[in-house]
């Protein structure tokens, strides 16, 4: 089964809607600006995985430069990346001068939110920044009762929701687990690429491993769900044994079959 990600359209007359979405983009981190060395090393990377870089939007990251204000020829750099089939879309880090030059090349300035994390990441010249895709409508429900915490769930690839998820609301945790410490109402939907944990009564619909992760699991304290699904294998409440209602269970796939086990 497929999971519809768009919220319902208001009416047929609506021509567009503006939503927030986030994407996982490869980040090209530069440590030096010698174009010859860059070209050589890029060549080697691209040969390893040509498909990965074909038409791939990439972000240039200058936060790791040995000389933070080094002269960079952006036209050459962009041309180099394009030559390997990549589509440079943005710049992260860099000096004011770099940013102005990037602006001239129609590159977007990406926020520097996770550069600290990137510095701790492996020393490669291509690494992957995982950012979060949060439906606009849903983003509001994140950690609302404590503004100091806002964003923590977004940074580390797992999402924590502490307010009830109401009928009609959808929460999607991209790239990680989703934990809800309040009730999930019937008519609400939880989705995650990883596991889903619910500590309040679960009355809504839950989709774990929606990108096909068959190892994903759902854990809940009080099962009253309308629908549970792991990696597309689903069961509606009609087909959940009555003795499991209100039970504390984990839901997982075993040999392509969805199992609901009390624990």
């Amino acid at each position: 089964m497929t999971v519809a990600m768009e919220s319902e359209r208001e009416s047929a007359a609506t021509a567009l809607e503006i939503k927030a979405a986030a994407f996982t983009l490869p980040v090209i981190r530069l440590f030096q600006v010698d174009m010859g060395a860059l070209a050589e090393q890029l060549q080697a990377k691209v040969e390893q995985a040509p498909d990965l870089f074909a038409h791939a939007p990439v972000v240039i990251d200058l936060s790791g430069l040995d000389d933070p204000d080094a002269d960079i020829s952006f036209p050459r750099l962009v041309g180099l990346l394009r030559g390997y089939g990549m589509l440079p879309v943005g710049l992260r880090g860099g000096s004011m001068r770099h940013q102005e030059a990037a602006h001239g090349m129609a590159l977007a300035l990406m926020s520097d939110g996770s550069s600290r994390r990137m510095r701790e990441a492996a020393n490669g010249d291509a690494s992957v920044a995982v950012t979060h895709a949060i439906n606009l409508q849903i983003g509001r429900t994140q950690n609302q009762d404590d503004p100091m915490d806002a964003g923590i769930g977004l940074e580390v690839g797992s999402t924590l929701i502490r307010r009830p998820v109401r009928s009609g609301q959808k929460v999607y945790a991209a790239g990680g687990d989703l934990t809800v410490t309040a009730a999930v109402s019937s008519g609400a939907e939880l989705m995650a690429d990883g596991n889903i944990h619910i500590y309040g009564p679960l009355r809504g619909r839950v989709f774990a491993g929606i990108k096909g992760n068959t190892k994903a699991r759902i854990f809940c304290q009080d099962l009253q769900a309308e629908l549970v699904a792991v990696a597309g294998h689903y069961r509606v409440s009609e087909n959940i044994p009555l003795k499991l209602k209100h039970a504390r269970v984990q839901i997982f796939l075993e040999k392509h079959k969805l199992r609901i086990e009390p624990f």
Partner: protein
Amino acid sequence: MIGGLGHLGLQEDLSLSRVIVITSGKGGVGKTTTSASMGMGLAQKGHRTVVIDFDVGLRNLDLVLGCERRVVYDFINVINGEAHLNQALIRDKRCNKLSVLPASQTRDKDALSVEGVGQVLEELSKDHEYIICDSPAGIEHGALMAMYYADDAVVVTNPEVSSVRDSDRMLGILASKSQRAEQNREPITEYLLLSRYSPNRVVRGEMLSVADVQEILSLKMLGVIPESQSVLNASNSGIPVILDTQSDAGQAYQDMVKRYLGEELPMRFTSDKRGMFGRLFGG
């Protein structure tokens, strides 16, 4: 930590007025009755209060408050600049702390604009402590406008599954579509008001109980209003039921206003008042 919270509370109190939306999603659950009674109750406690009818095209609030024959200008006139706020506001004859801003019966509800509503609310906030927005049913434009600027929300629910579901949906909208949500401020304070409650029907299993509803919606309960003929009588004669101090519904609304203002009171009218014989033989 406690000091920090106290500090936040203090900031809240500094704002001139509080905007309260009375909402539900479902129609016919008692939003207008609640708006009228809560407005009158707050005014009787000495607070300058205004009740705004957001139900453009189906105005009712003026009827329930008994001022329908004094409507000259309305909310939409004020938004469009066709009348001054003071020309449209109707001062209640029983309690001079209470004013009503009636809805237009003839205009389209799309006349309510975010900016227009915001301007009117800002002007009202200069000399009113409480601004009560009586939301229309549904989750369309009018309802969204009524809740957009709210600080507090009273979600009116009947003890039946469909009403509870709609209230839950409305709570989700409050959490995501209000100005507070859009600006990432402290969320709207949400309260539950259970209306048209009939304890003997709960006993017979025909209605959800207070506990059932509270378990599903997990909200602070502001009051339980019993199903009562006095509500209908009061509406028909243009007197907010809270003024009928003899009736159980009127007393329940008085309790509700006190709880909103911070008093802790036990819930009344939640158990079957008839004797055992009544329960055995009554219909």
